[in-house]
C-alpha cells in the first residue's frame, strides 16, 4: 500500500472537533483536513492553488508589454504606427527601464513594482498554428503543434496527483471539486482520459438549488450504443454535481470578499467568485477563468487616442481584475497560497493591418502573479528587427512555464512533470526561485526560536531571546494561513506558553513578528 493511500483510508479515525478563528461549518465538518493536508504534504503534495486566466482570441502582446528600447521601430508607420501607444503614456517598471506596460494596466504595474508579477517574454511553441481552435487546443493539451492529444495538461495533472480519479470521487479526503471552472462550458484543458476533472459553475450561490435536493440517478443497465454511452456520461455528471453541490454551497456561504471589485468586468466577476471559494475553505487546487474578446482584427484602438479603445478596455479588465483579486487574497491572508498565470492562444502580428487592427501572430508574453514569484523577467524584449513573416519569434516554450508551475508551485515530481507534458522534457522557467510551499519557504532555521515540547499534546512553550528586545506579535496558523486561538500567555521575558488542547492533530506554524523579519517555525500537534 502506498503511503498516500494509507492516509486516505485511515481518515475516519481522525475525526475531531476543530475551532478556527473566523471560519465556520465547512472547516468544522472536515475536521481532519489540516492534518490530512499536512500528511499529504509529507507524502509529496502541497495545498497551493493555481488560477489560470485564459485570454481568448489571441492577445496583442506587443501592445501589452511594450519594448521601450525599440520605441522608434515599434511606432514607425511601416510597423504599427496606426496603433502604437505614445511613449509618454506607457507605464514604466521599476528596475526594468527597457520594458513598459499598456497605459491601462496601472494595477499590474503596481504588482510588478511590488515583486509579485513575472513577465515571460515571447512565449509560444515552434511551428505555430494560426487557427484559433487549433492554437487553443495546443495550449490546452500542451501537445507539439504537429501532434494531437485529447486530454488537457491540467486534466493530466489531476490524474497524476489523484491517480484513481474519477472513481470514488468525491471522497472523505477530497470532498471538494479538484478543479473549478467559472463558466458554463468546460474546457479541454481539464479533460482526462475519461471525464473532465473540473466542475463548471457560474454562480456558487444558486448552484445547489438548481442541482436539486434529490439525486435522480438511475443505475439501470444501458444499451451498448452511442446513446447508452452518453447516458452513462450524464449519469456520472449528475452524480458528481450532486456530490459537490453541498460543498460549494457551504464554501460560498462562508467565504467573503474583503475588498471591492471593479464593475463591468467579467474577469473580475469570475475572480471574485474564486476568491470567495478560497476564503470559504474549499480545497480545490485549480481555478480557471476566461476573458474573451482579444481577436482584434480591426479598430483595436480608438481613432483619437491609441491608448484607449477595445484593447485598452481589455487590458484594464485584466489588470484591475487581477489586482482586486490579489488585494482580496491579501486581506484574507491566503495570498501566499495562490499563484495565477495568463495565456492566450497566440499573439498578434507585430506589424498592424490597415484597419487599426492586428491579424493572427505567434509569440506573446505571459504573466505569472503571486507572492511566490521570484524572477520577474523571463527572457528579454522581442527583437523587432528579427521577425518571421512579420511575427515575433519564440523565446520561451509555454511548456517551460507549465513545467515551472507544475514542479515549483504545485509540487509535482520531475517524473510527473514529464509525464504530464506528454513525455517530453522541458526545463522549468526560473519563475519561482525556491520550490514548494510557504512552509519550507518561510521557515527560517532559527536557533533563537525554540518550541518545547514539539510535537505538543496540550501545552507547549515558545522561547526566544528576541522576545525581550521587541514588541512581540505571536500568531499560530494552520497550513491555510488561518489564525488559531491558542490562549498565548506570557510566562517570562523570553517565554510564551500556548494551549493547543483545542486544536486538532496536524502541522501548524508559529509566527513571531518582532518588527523586523518575522520568525516562523513549524509546530506539530500529536496526541
Amino acid at each position, binding site marked *: 500500500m502506498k503511503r498516500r493511500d494509507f492516509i486516505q483510508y485511515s481518515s475516519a479515525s481522525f475525526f475531531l472537533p476543530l475551532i478556527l478563528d473566523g471560519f465556520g461549518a465547512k472547516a468544522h465538518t472536515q475536521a481532519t483536513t489540516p492534518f490530512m493536508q499536512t500528511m499529504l504534504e509529507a507524502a509529496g503534495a502541497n495545498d497551493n492553488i493555481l488560477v489560470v486566466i485564459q485570454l*481568448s*482570441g489571441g492577445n496583442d502582446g506587443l501592445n501589452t508589454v511594450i519594448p521601450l528600447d525599440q520605441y522608434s521601430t515599434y511606432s514607425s508607420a511601416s510597423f504599427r504606427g496606426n496603433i502604437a501607444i505614445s511613449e509618454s503614456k506607457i507605464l514604466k517598471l521599476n528596475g526594468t527601464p527597457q520594458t513598459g506596460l499598456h497605459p491601462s494596466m496601472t494595477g499590474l504595474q503596481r504588482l510588478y513594482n511590488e515583486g509579485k508579477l513575472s513577465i515571460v517574454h515571447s512565449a509560444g511553441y515552434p511551428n505555430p498554428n*494560426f*487557427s*484559433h*481552435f*487549433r492554437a487553443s*487546443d495546443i495550449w490546452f493539451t500542451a501537445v507539439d503543434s504537429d501532434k494531437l492529444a*485529447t486530454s488537457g495538461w491540467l486534466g493530466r495533472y489531476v490524474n497524476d496527483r489523484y491517480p484513481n480519479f474519477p472513481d470514488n470521487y468525491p471522497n472523505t479526503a477530497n470532498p471538494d471539486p479538484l478543479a473549478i471552472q467559472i463558466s*458554463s*462550458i*468546460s474546457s*479541454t484543458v481539464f*479533460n482526462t482520459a475519461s471525464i*473532465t476533472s473540473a*466542475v*463548471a*459553475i*457560474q454562480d456558487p450561490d444558486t*448552484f445547489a438549488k*438548481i*442541482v*436539486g435536493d434529490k439525486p*435522480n*440517478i*438511475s443505475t*439501470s*443497465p444501458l*444499451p451498448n*450504443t*452511442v*446513446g*447508452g454511452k*452518453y*447516458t*452513462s*456520461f*450524464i*449519469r456520472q*455528471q*449528475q452524480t*458528481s*454535481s450532486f456530490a*459537490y*453541490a453541498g460543498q460549494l454551497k457551504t464554501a460560498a456561504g462562508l467565504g467573503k470578499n474583503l475588498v471591492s471589485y471593479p464593475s463591468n468586468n467579467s474577469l473580475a466577476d469570475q475572480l471574485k467568485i474564486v476568491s470567495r471559494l478560497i476564503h470559504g475553505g474549499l480545497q480545490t487546487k485549480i481555478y480557471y477563468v476566461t476573458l*474573451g474578446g482579444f*481577436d482584434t*482584427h*480591426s479598430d483595436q484602438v480608438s481613432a483619437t487616442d491609441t491608448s484607449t479603445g477595445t484593447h485598452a478596455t481589455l487590458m484594464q479588465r485584466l489588470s484591475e481584475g487581477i489586482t482586486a483579486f490579489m488585494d482580496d487574497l491579501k486581506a484574507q491572508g491566503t495570498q501566499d497560497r495562490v499563484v495565477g498565470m495568463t495565456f492566450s492562444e497566440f499573439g498578434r502580428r507585430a506589424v498592424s*493591418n*490597415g*484597419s487599426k*487592427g492586428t*491579424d*493572427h501572430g505567434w509569440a506573446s508574453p505571459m504573466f505569472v502573479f503571486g507572492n511566490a514569484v521570484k524572477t520577474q523577467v523571463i527572457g528579454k524584449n522581442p527583437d523587432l528587427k528579427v521577425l518571421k*513573416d512579420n511575427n515575433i519569434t519564440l523565446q520561451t516554450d509555454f511548456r517551460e512555464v507549465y513545467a515551472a508551475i507544475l514542479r515549483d508551485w504545485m509540487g509535482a515530481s520531475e517524473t510527473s512533470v514529464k509525464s504530464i507534458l506528454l513525455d517530453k522534457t522541458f526545463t522549468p522557467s526560473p519563475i519561482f526561485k525556491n520550490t514548494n510551499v510557504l512552509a519550507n519557504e518561510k521557515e527560517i532555521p532559527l536557533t533563537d526560536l525554540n518550541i518545547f515540547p514539539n510535537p505538543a499534546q496540550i501545552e507547549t512553550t515558545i522561547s526566544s531571546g528576541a522576545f525581550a528586545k521587541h514588541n512581540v506579535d505571536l500568531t499560530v496558523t494552520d497550513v491555510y494561513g488561518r489564525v488559531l486561538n491558542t490562549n498565548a500567555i506570557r510566562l517570562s521575558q523570553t517565554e510564551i506558553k500556548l494551549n493547543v488542547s483545542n486544536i486538532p492533530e496536524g502541522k501548524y506554524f508559529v509566527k513571531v513578528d518582532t518588527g523586523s523579519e518575522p520568525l516562523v517555525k513549524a509546530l506539530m500537534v500529536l496526541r
Partner: protein
Amino acid sequence: MALIDAYTQNLTARQVSHLLRRATFGGTPAQVKELTGKKAEFIVQKLLAVQPTPSDPTDENQKTFHDLVWGGTGTNDTERNAFDGVRRGRLKLWWIGLMITQPVSLLEKTTLFWQNHFVSTSTDVSDVRFLYRQNQLLRKYALGNFRDFVIEITKDPAMLLYLNGASNVVGKPNENYARELMELFTIGRGNYTEDDVKAAARVLTGWRSLNFRSITDKTIGFEFRPAQHDTADKIFSDSYQKRTIKGRTGTTAGDDELKDLIDMILAQPETARFIVRKFYRWFVQADISDQIEKEFIEPLAAIFRKNYDIKITLQTLFNSQHFYDETLYGSQIKSPMDLVVGTLRRFNYVLPDPVKDRTKYDTATNYFYARNREQQMDIIDQPSVFGWRPYYDTDFYEIWINSTTLALRGAWTDYVVKGATGTALDINALGLPLQTSDPTDPYKMVRELTDTVFSFPLTDEQVKYLVEQPLMAGSPYYEWTSIWNDYTKTPNDAVKKNAAKTHLDRLMTFVLRLAEYQMG
C-alpha cells in the same frame, strides 16, 4: 447493401420520432402519429417542401423595424445601440417562435445549421437590419446551392462586418475573412497554406457594407470599390494546384475574382467532405469512424460535389439505411434548442399568437430564449466564429453538459411540468395517460408514455421503479387504478383530480430529469 442506400420499409413510431428529432426540433404527438407507417421517402419529401416566407419580425406594437433607420428614438449612439439591442433581441425571439411553431420541415433546423456555420453575431454586428438580412439569406439558401450560397455570404453586409471583409483593402489586406472562408466555411484546416490565406485575402479586397448603424438611411447593402481592389495576380500553393487567379480591374473585378476563388476551393474534393462531415455531426452523430468515413461520408460527399446541391444531399442522408440504424437512436446529446423547443413540442405547447396575444407571446419567447442562452446556445451569438463548440471540439456534444448546464436542464423540465400562466405553458398531465392504451394499468401506462418520451426504451426495471417511486411514492401500485378511475368518473371533483395530477406531475418531473431524456 451500402450504408447510403435508401431505407424502404415503412417507418415505426420510434423511427418517425428519431427522424423528427433530427430533421426538426422534435415532432408533436400528432405529427408522429400521422407519419407512422409511412415511408422515409414520403416524409423526407414533406420535410424538403418549399415553405412560405415567414412574416417579418415586429415590435410590441406589431410594427416592423428592419426597414427603418438604426437606433429608433435614441438621441445618441449609446441610446441608439440600446434601442437596437432590443430589436436584435426581438429578432432572436421571432426565430425561436418559428422553431416552436414549425411544420414538418427541415427549414428551421437547417437554417440554424447555417447560422452556426456562417457565424455572424449580434454582439459584433450591432444593427438588426444586417442580421435580419443575413437571416433571410440563410433561409433562402439553407436547402439551395452551396456554391451560390458561399458567394452570397461573402458579400453579405453582416459578414463583411463580422469578419472584417469591409476593411480588407489593397495594400493593407485584412486576412480575417479569407482565413475563416478556408478554415471554417469550405475546405477545413490542413488543406491550405498561410500564403493561400494571404492570396485569398487579396482576391477579396474592395468590398464593403453600406449604411451600418446609419441614422439617416433606411436601406442597407454592400458595394464593390474597384479602387480598393488588389488588381495584381494571386498565386496559390500546391494545395490548389498552384492556381493563379488573374487580377482584374473595373467594377466587375470583385465578382469575377470571387467566383474564381470559390470555384477553385470547391473543386477540391476535401471541401465537399468537410461540409458533409459537418452535416453528419449536426444531423446524425459526432463520431465518424473509418468505416463511416469510407462508406457514408465519401459517397455522400461525391453526391454533394456534383452540383453542390444541399437539398439532394440531405435527402440522401435522411433516406439512407444508415440513418435508421437502430444503434443510432439517441446518439446525440440534445442541444439546448432541441431540449427546450423539443420538450414544448412533445407536450403540445401552443405558442400565444404574436398578433392577438402579443404580451404573452413576448413573455413566452423571451423565457424560452433565456433558457437556451443560459444553457449556452445563444442563437446569432455564438461564442466565436467557430460556432458552438459541441459541433467541432474534442468530446463534441458532451460539451453541452457540465454541472451547471445539467442542473439548468433539470430546472427547465421541472418548470415545464409545473406549468406557468405567464408563458401559457401547461403540459396537461391529466391528459397524458389518455395517450396510452390502458391508463388504468400503471405499468402499461408508464411503459407506453416513456416510449414516446425517450429515444430508446427504458429497461423493465426502470419502468417498475418509475411506477413504485415517483408515481406511487411507495404506495402499492394497484392503487393507481382507483386513483385514475376516481378522477375519470368525477373529473370535476377537485380532490380526486388533484390526487391524480399530483401523481402524474411527480412522475413526469422525475422522468424528464432522467439522464436518458437528454438523448436526442
